[in-house]
C-alpha cells in the first residue's frame, strides 16, 4: 500500500475522463442523434510499482478507459497525465517517447499478434524503436522469450504454432521489449484455461518484482483481480462506483453493486460451499449506456435504493482509510458524512 502515494506525482493519472461515441448519424453530414458514454467522469491514478485493478461487467467501459489511458483513443473530455505531463491531446510524434514507457497487452493474443510475422520479428519491432538492431537484437529477443518462459529456439515460429497461453506470453514479451514502466493489461488471462491462467499470473507477478513495473489490470474476473491488485476500482455503466485497497473492497465493500458482484462469484471456499446459500443476486441487467438511468445508475437493481437514488447522482466520497464509494446508502456506514 502506498502511504506516500498522495504527495508523489502519480505515474499515470486520469482526471474527469470522458469518452463518448456517436451512435446514430442521419445521412451524410447529419449530426449524431445520440451518444454512448462509455467512460463518464472517471478519475484515477496509478502509482509507481503498484497494480491497480479495474473490474466491471461487459459494457461498463473498462476497456474504453484502458484505451484512453494509453492514448490509443482520444478521450472526448477530461485529461490524462503521464508523470505530470498532459498527454490528453498529444500528437503521435509527441506520444512516441511515451509509448516506449506505456505498453499494452490485449485480451485476445490471436487477434493482437500479426499472423504473418515470426515471433522474433514481432518482439524485435519494439527493440528497433529502442535503437537495438543486428545481432544485439537477436540476443535480446532470445532473452525476452526466455524471460517470459518461452523456448528461445522458437524465434522463427509463427504465432499459430503456439498455444493460447504461449501466445499471451509473446504479447507480454513484445510489451517488455521497449522496457516500459507501465503495462496496461486488458483481460490478459480471460481467454486462458485455469492452469495456464495461473502460469501467466505468476509470470506477471515475477516481472513486476524484477523490473518494478506498474500494472493497470483490467478484467471481469474478480478472483483474478483480487489476486493481482494492490488497489481496485469497480466500474458500473461508465463510472467508478468504488475504489479502495484490494482487501478493503473484498472485505468491506461499501457499494451495493460491489457487494452483489462479490456475492455472485461462485466460490470453492468450504465455508461458503457448506451453506450452499444462494446469495442475494442483483436482479435485472445493467442499463443502457446510451440512456443510463437517472440518479444513481445502479438504483434499478439495488435493494437499498430510495427516492434520492432515483434523482440524484451520488458523488464519489472518501470514507475511512481513503476508501472511495459513490453511494447514498453505503453498506455498513450509519450516516453519510456531508
Amino acid at each position, binding site marked *: 500500500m502506498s502511504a506516500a502515494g498522495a504527495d508523489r506525482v502519480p505515474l499515470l493519472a486520469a482526471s474527469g475522463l470522458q469518452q463518448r461515441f456517436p451512435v446514430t448519424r442521419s445521412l451524410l453530414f447529419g449530426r449524431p442523434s445520440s451518444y454512448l458514454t462509455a467512460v463518464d467522469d472517471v478519475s484515477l491514478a496509478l502509482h509507481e510499482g503498484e497494480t491497480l485493478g479495474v473490474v466491471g461487467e461487459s459494457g461498463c467501459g473498462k476497456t474504453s478507459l484502458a484505451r484512453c489511458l494509453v492514448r490509443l483513443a482520444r478521450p472526448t473530455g477530461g485529461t490524462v497525465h503521464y508523470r505530470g505531463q498532459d498527454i490528453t491531446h498529444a500528437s503521435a510524434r509527441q506520444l512516441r517517447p511515451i509509448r516506449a514507457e506505456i505498453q499494452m497487452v490485449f485480451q485476445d493474443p490471436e487477434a493482437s499478434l500479426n499472423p504473418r510475422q515470426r515471433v522474433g520479428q514481432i518482439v524485435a519491432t519494439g527493440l528497433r524503436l529502442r535503437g537495438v538492431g543486428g545481432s544485439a537484437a537477436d540476443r535480446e529477443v532470445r532473452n525476452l522469450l526466455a524471460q517470459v518462459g518461452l523456448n528461445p529456439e522458437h524465434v522463427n515460429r509463427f504465432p499459430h504454432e503456439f498455444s493460447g497461453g504461449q501466445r499471451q506470453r509473446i504479447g507480454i514479451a513484445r510489451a517488455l521489449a521497449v522496457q516500459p514502466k507501465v503495462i496496461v493489461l486488458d483481460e490478459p488471462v480471460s481467454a486462458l484455461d485455469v492452469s495456464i491462467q495461473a502460469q501467466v499470473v505468476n509470470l506477471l507477478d515475477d516481472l513486476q518484482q524484477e523490473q518494478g513495473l506498474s500494472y493497470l489490470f483490467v478484467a471481469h474476473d474478480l478472483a483474478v483481480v483480487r489476486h493481482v491488485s494492490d488497489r481496485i476500482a469497480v466500474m458500473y455503466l461508465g463510472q467508478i462506483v468504488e475504489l479502495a485497497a484490494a482487501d478493503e473492497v473484498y472485505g468491506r465493500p461499501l457499494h451495493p453493486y460491489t457487494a452483489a458482484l462479490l456475492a455472485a462469484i461462485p466460490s470453492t471456499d468450504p465455508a461458503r460451499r457448506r451453506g450452499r446459500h444462494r446469495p442475494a*443476486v442483483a436482479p435485472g441487467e445493467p442499463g443502457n449506456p446510451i440512456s443510463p438511468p437517472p440518479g444513481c445508475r445502479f438504483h434499478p437493481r439495488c435493494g437499498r435504493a430510495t427516492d434520492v437514488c432515483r434523482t440524484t447522482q451520488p458523488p464519489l466520497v472518501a470514507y475511512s482509510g481513503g476508501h472511495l464509494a459513490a453511494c447514498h446508502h453505503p453498506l455498513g456506514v450509519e450516516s453519510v458524512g456531508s
Partner: protein
Amino acid sequence: MAALLQVTDLEVAFRTHDGPLRAVDGVSFAVDAGQIVAVVGESGSGKSVMAMTLLGLTRGANASFGGTAQFGDVELVGATEDELRAVRGAQIAMIFQNPMTALNPVQRIGRQIVEQIRAHEPVSRAAARARTVELLDRVGIPQAATRVDAFPHELSGGMRQRAMIALALSCQPRLLIADEPTTALDVTIQAQILAEIEELRRETGVGVVFITHDLGIVSQIADQVLVMYGGRVVESAPVDAMFDDPQHPYTWGLLGSAPTAERARRSRLPAIGGSPPSLLRPPAGCHFAPRCPHSFDPCGQTPALRDRLADRPGHLDRCWLEPGQKRRLREVDGQIGLAAAERAG
C-alpha cells in the same frame, strides 16, 4: 432404480490428417433423475465431445465410437438417426455455450420454440404458442407475451440464454445437457441462470449433465463431479469429497490454480507446469504423468478408474499414488495444490 443415463466405456476417435485423435477415451458415469453431474476439465479434455456424442452430434465419416450410453431403453451410441430424433429435444435437451450461434438468427424465438414442441407433440399452433409464452415467463423473461416475437439479436446475452433454456425445456426433457451455459455471461447474470437451473432441477426432477471449466460453479450446483483430462475421467466423486479430499494430482492442480476471491494477494498460485497433452500422441500410461511432480515408475502404465479409499466406495480416481500419502503431497502453503515440479518441464 436404474440410472437415468448410464454411460459405459464411451470412446470417440476422429481420423485426422495426422492420425487418429482419441478425444474421449473410455468414459463411464451415471446420472440419476434430479441429479446434477458436473464435468470439469480444460479445453481439449474431451468434455464437450463426450456430451455432444450423447446426442449423436459428433457423428461423421471420420468419427468412430465405442462403448454404450443407455438412456431408458435407448442405447444412444448405436441408435439410428430416427431413434435419436425422437429422443433429441424431447427427452434429452441441450443448452449450448453461445446462444447467439445456437439460436436461429432469422427466426423469432417464439417460432423456434413452437417448432420444437410441434415436432414432438400433436398440438395446435395456438396451444404451442401459449405454452411458449408460459415457458418464457417461467425462465424469467419479462413481458414474455411480447418478447415471444423478438429475434435473438434483440435480446441481451442473459435473455438469449434464458430463451435457450426455455427452448430446452419445451418438451419436458428428462435429461438436460448444459455445455458451459454461463461462460459467455457476466457474473451477476451467471448467478441468475445458475439459480434458474437449480430451481428447474428441484421442480421437474430433470437430470443435468453440466459441463464447465469453473470449479466455483461446480462447488455451487453439482451433486457429483467428473474431472476429465486428456479424454479420460481422472477422478469421480460426490462434490464435497472432491473439494475436501481430492485424490488425483490433476484435481489438486486445478484447485490450486484457480485464484479465489477469499485468498489474499501475493500468495503465489501453485500453477500446473507445462501444457495439456496432444490427443494425437498422448503420453503412454497416465496422461497427466508428464506434468505431475509426483509421478514415479508405475505411471508408465494407465491406472484404472476405481475406488482406492476403503471408506468411500463412490470416490473413484486414476492415480497410482498411495492414498495414505496424498494428504501430505497435495498440501501447498496450507492449501490444496500441486507442488512445483522438481524437474524442468
